[in-house]
């Protein structure tokens, strides 16, 4: 490769000599960053589908450092809610014959359900093959005795702000549980512990974290995100304008 002017360039001592490559790199990065913000959701989708399954199989553990196939922790309040097992109570009320309250130990003593399913967030990330353990929501409903005019459930989080909803039919599905274990460990504060809802066939926002109270209602009352535009029936792959593979 010939570079006829190179010798001339080398002997120029002035600091102002040369091309402003630094500025170009700087501005180029801003462009890449802005494009990434606008297109990142789509690229993330593609990566989760194309690369996610490979990373799940990687044996070295190094690939798990990459931002693919991992949980993101979202809270809607400024703090991270936290409650000890000893202080925890799950309350079931509203349009039921027998409103009741369960301690953590009483909940764990009930017959358990274990599920292995992908976890899909409506923002694009997906965690493959997650193990959840908890109590079928239907069992809690049976215990409370749902009244005839109740058609829906409203979930309240002890973060003081988050709410969610399900229809009675959705709530009675066998893959909808009140979960207290994730991957064989107690549910951490980050993941909504000590007890959260887990609605396997729906996007993550339906799985109310830090579950405090379940209320039977006459009609579906829109939850925190649903008031802000998310679909009430958050089926993975069939809602919110997304076409993810069902979980």
């Amino acid at each position, binding site marked *: 490769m010939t570079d006829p002017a190179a010798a001339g360039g*080398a002997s120029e001592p002035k600091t102002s000599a*040369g091309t402003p490559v630094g500025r170009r790199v700087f501005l180029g*990065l801003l462009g890449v*960053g802005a494009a990434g913000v*606008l297109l990142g959701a789509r690229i993330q989708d593609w990566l989760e589908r194309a690369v996610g399954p490979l990373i799940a199989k990687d044996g070295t553990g190094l690939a798990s*450092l990459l931002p693919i196939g991992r949980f993101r*922790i979202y809270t809607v309040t400024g*703090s991270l809610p936290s409650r000890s097992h000893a202080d925890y109570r799950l309350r079931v009320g509203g349009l039921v014959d027998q409103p009741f309250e369960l301690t953590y130990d009483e909940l764990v003593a009930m017959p358990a359900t274990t599920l292995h399913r992908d976890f899909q967030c409506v923002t694009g990330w997906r965690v493959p093959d997650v193990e959840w353990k908890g109590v079928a929501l239907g069992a809690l409903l049976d215990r409370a005795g749902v009244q005839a005019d109740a058609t829906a459930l409203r979930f309240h989080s002890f973060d003081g702000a988050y709410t969610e909803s399900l229809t009675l039919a959705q709530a009675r599905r066998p893959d909808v549980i009140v979960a207290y274990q994730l991957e064989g460990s107690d549910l951490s504060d*980050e993941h909504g512990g000590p007890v959260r809802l887990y609605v396997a066939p729906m996007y993550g926002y339906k799985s109310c974290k830090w579950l405090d109270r379940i209320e039977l209602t006459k009609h579906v009352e829109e939850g925190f995100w649903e008031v802000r535009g998310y679909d009430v029936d958050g089926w993975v792959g069939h809602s919110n304008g997304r076409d993810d593979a069902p979980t």
Partner: protein
Amino acid sequence: MRRPDTTPTSAATEPAVDAPLLRFDRVERTLHWVNATLFGILMLTGAALYAGPVSAIVGHRVLVRNLHVYSGLLLPLPLALAVLGRHGTRLRTDLGRLNRWTRDDARWFRRTRRDDVTLGKFNPGQKLNAAFIAGAAVVMLGTGSIMHWFQHFPLDWRTGATFVHDWFALGIWLAVLGHIFFALRDGDALDSMLGGTIPAAWARRHAPLWYEELRR
């Protein structure tokens, strides 16, 4: 052979023992170490927020997140304070040097023959690192703000910002580890970021154009 009465015009060919040269003034050094501290906090708290095993050990998620957010928002301040005003003269000159690439800089990257390239105060690796860190810092500030104040942005932007923030973070980790690696390999250069001066022999060898410039 020493000729103490050498005139400045012949200095470039003079192999005599020169006084050490001021490479970074107090403003530049202070800025460097303040930024290094902020980057250290950002990278470690970022790792604690990002990597499950690290967050399990560190805990205190809210505190860690606040540290991360406020260190990030603070990041532009030291540079702004250092670069504005009369005390920033040398810093501004050096930023100009980092910005400008000569033909020799480009040739240096091709790596075929580095003996015949003549570099200025900063080598092309340092220039690229500076431009990358500057651009990445702005991108991190922007995407981090979208992540923090997500309610005010479309859902897709939050996803996109998270996506960009994650991948740029990986790039910053690599760049900073590389920067530290090269700094530890060059004791004179590292000392000059602590004490300010560097032996003239170092400048003659690694930054000949800068050396000439100072002798003129």
